[in-house]
């Protein structure tokens, strides 16, 4: 009996997916769909929160008051994105506290790009231009993802990300139009960020175990390699416009495919950083754990006060 009911629920789910009807929190969904989404959305939320650290590293040293204001607002936006995304994931039945715990223990992953250090001001430009550029490439299709709360969160996120990318490009442009030292700063940052940014799209399609199912469920709309190719095709002309050299001697236009061929990605580096051996993995987790531990008394006090206030209200009622 049970299996028949299950089957028909699954049929309804599949029909919705097929006809592009959004899945909503109260709808029946396969456990694996739910799990895949919780993993993906919480990873995405964690990336926003951990992503505050490398750029936050330059807030106190931003070179002008205007840049300082823009950077502060940008990093704050990332906290906001984290909030929307944690809320979206919570609709699937996992609490923010639980997700936080998984991040802090190292169990949950976040985008490996944030395990690289920001060494110069140009890194703030490079992150905005390249990393946010790659994020937009990944995220615009997610505005049409099959799970409603995730898709709606992504609409808000994407609007702000495009502003982030513009400010990054503008920093790079200012540097590239500046002194020799500033141009060198821009090129040096570009050299360091280019390859890790290409890795942001995830492993090659043939090595991405979740892609096929996620495409079928319309969680993902394009494969990792498709998005990576689009990104390269979009960024190479921008780099040329800035007067920067793409750090890839194998990069060349391929007329037949109407896109660029590019050199081999160092997947050893990618997996090594995923495993926790990137230059900043330890520092990033340490910073998040420190904030959590040092904030414990604040959260306890806020809770205790809220309880007292509620009791007082009851008594006076």
């Amino acid at each position, binding site marked *: 009996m049970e299996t028949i009911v299950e089957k028909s629920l699954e049929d309804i789910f599949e029909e919705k997916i097929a006809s592009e009807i959004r899945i909503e929190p109260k709808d029946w969904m396969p456990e694996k769909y739910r799990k895949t989404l919780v993993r993906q959305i919480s990873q995405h939320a964690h990336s926003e929160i951990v992503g505050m650290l490398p750029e936050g590293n330059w*807030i106190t040293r931003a*070179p002008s008051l205007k840049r300082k204001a823009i950077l502060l607002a940008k990093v*704050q936006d990332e906290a906001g994105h984290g909030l929307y995304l944690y809320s979206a994931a919570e609709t699937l039945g996992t609490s923010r506290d639980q997700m936080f715990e998984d991040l802090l223990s190292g169990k949950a992953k976040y985008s490996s790009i944030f395990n690289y250090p920001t060494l110069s001001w140009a890194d703030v430009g490079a992150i905005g231009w390249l990393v946010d550029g790659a994020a937009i490439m990944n995220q615009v299709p997610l505005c049409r993802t099959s799970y409603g709360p995730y898709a709606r969160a992504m609409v808000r996120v994407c609007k702000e990300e495009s*502003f982030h990318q513009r400010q990054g490009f503008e920093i790079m442009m200012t540097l590239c139009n500046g002194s020799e030292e500033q141009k060198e700063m821009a090129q040096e940052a570009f050299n360091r960020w280019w390859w890790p940014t290409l890795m942001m799209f995830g492993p090659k399609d043939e090595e991405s175990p979740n892609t096929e199912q996620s495409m079928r469920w319309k969680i993902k709309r394009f494969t990792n390699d498709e998005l990576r190719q689009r990104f390269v095709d979009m960024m190479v002309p921008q780099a040329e416009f800035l007067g920067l050299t793409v750090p890839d001697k194998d990069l060349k236009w391929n007329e037949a495919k109407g896109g660029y061929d590019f050199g081999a990605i160092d997947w050893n580096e990618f997996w090594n950083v995923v495993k926790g051996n990137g230059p900043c993995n330890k520092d990033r987790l340490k910073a998040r754990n420190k*904030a959590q531990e040092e904030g414990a008394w*604040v959260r306890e006090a*806020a809770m205790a006060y809220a309880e007292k206030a509620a009791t007082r209200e009851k008594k006076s009622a």
Partner: protein
Amino acid sequence: MMDHHTQPAHVLHELQFKTPLQEYSPEVRQLVFDYTLQLADTSLILSHRLAEWCGHGPILEQDMAMTNISLDLLGEARNLYQYAAELEGKGHTEDDLAYLRDAVAYKNPLLVEQPNGNFGDTVLRQFIFDTFHYFFLKELQNSTDHRLAAIAEKSLKEASYHIKWSSEWVIRLGDGTEESKKRMEAAIDELWTYSGELFEATPTEKALQELDIIPDYTSIKAEWDKHVAQVLQEATLALPQDQWMQSGGKYGRHSEHLGYILSDLQYLQRTYPGQKW
């Protein structure tokens, strides 16, 4: 707790005061310039301190709230530096004034350069300042200096959120757990000594008060005393006894902390002089 301060700030402060400069004698102009710079320094340094929290706050929503206050103060500082640069009339920009003056030229009171400490220290520093700032801006709106009045009017809207945020947190932490109360008591012990300087008028301030360009501090101090006493009482925290008040910041005699703030703040402008960013 979802309020104004948990919303991301997208609207950045841009030049918005285009009113022409008032006619002042060179002496008065110098006074207004010095004072505007003092206000700008104060907002900038406190903004800088709050910005150090960004990404490290105890609760995501409060991380955002502190960044919001930081952004508001930075916007206020920019409006003030831009005005100061105009008054000075030497072709300097807001950035020249912020990035190319050394610690002794900075005129902020000592309170705002004090280190963040723990969240309770930051909340208390903010509470002392916000209460002053709020009642001060209310009066400054009536300044005979049109630009200062306009800047005050704009900043007052923001400051009314700031005072609400920090007052609520003083109450929450004071009347929260035993530990949070102890921490707030420690914060009061540490920071109260810097509250007096806010109301101590320098010769520049006295001269401007006589000209009705800035408000007298007596009534502001009375409002400050009243609000502070109310909040501390609700927070079940004891109102501190009269005590020695540190001062000197408004004269350029700072704590050792300011130099480190400026070496971060000014690093790129100092390392690569004269470049555009």
